[in-house]
């Protein structure tokens, strides 16, 4: 066949163009060293420490302030007040204080360092599938027109809830989930983004956050009370302990120093008590009515919105709500921070990697839906293919680098159609490095099927949908580039 002869030559050319930009993929062995963990290619704006074990927001300055305040105040308390109180009142005071302090720090660190319940972004196939479903319900949009906001309605316990589509994560958000603009993630059961804790508060760390503020309010009240006690007792007992002038001067110096510390502690505790106790009370109310801060602020379930408006997630009585929030099962992290990146797995941000081969009709509807400028092009694969070949190979070529979106992520349809061509382009490369990558990452069991279309396409030479007219390729290529550039600015 005429086309069959031409294609291998073109494939070679495309290969060369691709490898010029990305890291050279001469040997698969270089890849072995560059294996990345998933946290390194995480698309959100989070910071990771300890090789992905710790996850925090980008701005952590206030968190350090929180730590300093707690440590300094507690430190001063244990250093200067506790000896007096232990000897004069009871040693249970520092003991209880110690337990409270350990609990507070534990909860704070747990709330700050754990994954709040981030939802991973959609894989390209999922995004394409959702786009297709949306267009089936809404109807295809005209060229150059942004489709209306996408919502889905679902009835939960008799209450109609709207599920919104997240344009960044390309998913329909589950109920109670929300997108945090600071962290650029969708978080399940999103409560709020807490700068004091340096993280979002969501489904997985809400109980830690609540226990943190609860125990901190106890600790603050505890320290406040006993520092005041110390001051009062000091004022009462000081004159009785002094016999000599030297004693008096020494005690005076110490007492001035202690007074300063005490003043600092009292000031910190006083202001903290109001805010933290207030916050604890507020969150106790939220827990007992099974609402999130987000919902409360928006008044989602308030009776002011309508007569029939009620919270569909509440269990009815506040005890069950409290128990469910604090003692319910702890769901695992969905983002698998420390897992290894499968180089051929489609990353959500770089969607041009090995995706499923869709039949031609589906491709056409994808492309029509997602790229208005290509809507008028009759030939499907020709237009998308050359560009896709370049960028798809950018995927396997720089497999283990961070997945930088070379194309805007709203055109999965293009990738769907184009990769048929692209995968045949990368036939030679894919075959080799795919097998080596299986060696490299044995943890991924079983590896996603999407990882293997490269190899599966090897024997796949002529597919009816892949017949295209090479002559019209160049003109379509320009159009597709323009289309993509336009989309990337959206």
């Amino acid at each position, binding site marked *: 066949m005429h086309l069959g002869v031409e294609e291998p030559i073109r494939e070679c050319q495309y290969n060369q163009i691709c490898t010029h930009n990305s890291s050279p993929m001469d040997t698969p062995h270089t890849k072995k060293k560059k294996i990345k963990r998933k946290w390194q290619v995480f698309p959100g704006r989070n910071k990771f420490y300890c090789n992905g074990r710790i996850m925090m927001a980008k701005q952590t300055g206030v968190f350090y302030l929180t730590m300093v305040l707690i440590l300094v105040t507690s430190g001063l308390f244990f250093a200067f007040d506790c000896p007096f109180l232990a000897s004069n009142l009871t040693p249970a005071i520092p003991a209880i204080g110690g337990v409270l302090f350990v*609990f507070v720090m*534990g*909860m704070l660190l*747990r709330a700050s360092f754990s994954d709040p319940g981030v*939802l*991973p972004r*959609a*894989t390209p*196939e*999922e995004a394409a*599938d959702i786009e297709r479903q949306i267009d089936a319900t809404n109807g295809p949009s005209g060229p150059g027109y942004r489709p209306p906001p996408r919502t889905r309605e*679902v*009835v*939960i*316990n008799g209450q109609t*809830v709207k*599920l919104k589509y997240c344009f960044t994560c390309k*998913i329909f958000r*589950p*109920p*109670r989930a929300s997108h945090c603009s600071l962290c650029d993630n969708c978080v*399940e*059961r999103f409560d709020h983004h807490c700068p004091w804790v340096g993280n979002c508060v969501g489904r997985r760390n809400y109980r*830690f956050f609540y226990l943190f503020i609860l125990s901190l309010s106890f600790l603050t009240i505890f320290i406040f009370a006993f520092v005041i006690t110390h001051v009062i007792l000091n004022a009462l007992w000081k004159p009785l302990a002094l016999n000599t002038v030297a004693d008096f001067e020494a005690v005076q110096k110490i007492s001035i120093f202690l007074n300063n510390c005490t003043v600092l502690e009292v000031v910190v505790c006083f202001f903290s008590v109001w805010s933290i106790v207030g916050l604890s009370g507020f969150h106790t109310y939220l827990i007992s009515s099974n609402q999130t801060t987000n919902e409360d602020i928006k008044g989602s379930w308030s009776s002011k919105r309508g007569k029939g408006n009620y919270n*569909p*997630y509440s269990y009815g009585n506040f005890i*069950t709500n409290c*128990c*469910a929030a*604090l*003692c*319910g*099962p*702890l*769901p*695992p992290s*969905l*983002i*698998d921070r420390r897992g290894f990146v499968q180089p051929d797995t489609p990353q959500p941000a770089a969607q041009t990697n090995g995706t*499923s*081969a*869709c039949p031609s009709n589906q491709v056409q509807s994808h492309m029509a839906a997602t790229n208005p400028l290509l809507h008028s092009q009759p030939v499907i694969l020709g237009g998308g293919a050359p560009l896709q070949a370049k960028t798809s190979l950018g995927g396997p070529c720089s497999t283990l680098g961070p997945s930088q979106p070379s194309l805007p992520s709203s055109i999965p349809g293009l990738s769907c159609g184009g990769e048929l061509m692209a995968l045949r382009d990368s036939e030679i490369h894919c075959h080799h490095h795919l*097998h*080596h990558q*299986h*060696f490299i990452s*044995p943890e991924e*069991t*079983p*590896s*996603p*099927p*999407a990882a*293997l*279309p490269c*190899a*599966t*396409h090897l*024997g*796949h030479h002529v597919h009816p949908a892949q017949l295209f007219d090479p002559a019209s390729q160049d003109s379509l290529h320009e159009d597709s580039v323009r289309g993509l550039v336009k989309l990337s600015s959206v």
Partner: protein
Amino acid sequence: MVTSSGELDFTSTGTGISSSHGNMATEFHNLQELRHSASLANKVFIQRDYTDGTVCKFQTKFPSELDSRIERTLFEDTVKTLNNYYAEAEKIGGQSYLEGCLACLTVYLIFLCIETRYEKVLKKISRYIQEQNEKVYAPRGLLITDPIERGMRVIEISVYEDRGSSGSSSGSSTTSSSGR
């Protein structure tokens, strides 16, 4: 394909899974053969069912793309079993309270030693999915991806092209054996 044998645990046995259903199932002896000799035709996504709230539950509606590939009852059984597993994981009852209180008392350090009930159930789920893939789905040219790998949003079913449909079934077995 020696290199890929190290990747998947369950394919080491290589037991023959022959199906009794005529043109609905092709002969794939193990899942790695399926992947290497078949080509990915489509992916079907089973979305979450939120009518019971935020609990993890998947829609049991039978997708039309699988109409010719698998029997409705088998599919529904799989999804219902998965839903039951997830319900068990997220159940709020005596055991979860005990676990929660114990963890709270130990400042959640106990989870460094033992795994949560949810994690135990997730392991059961992945074993179940593996078993279902081997026994039911792979012989029909389908493959289920564990929802946890997709953020518990969807059950992804990869539909592989039925090579046996274009040629004879013996043709497909020769390609599969040559692909080994």
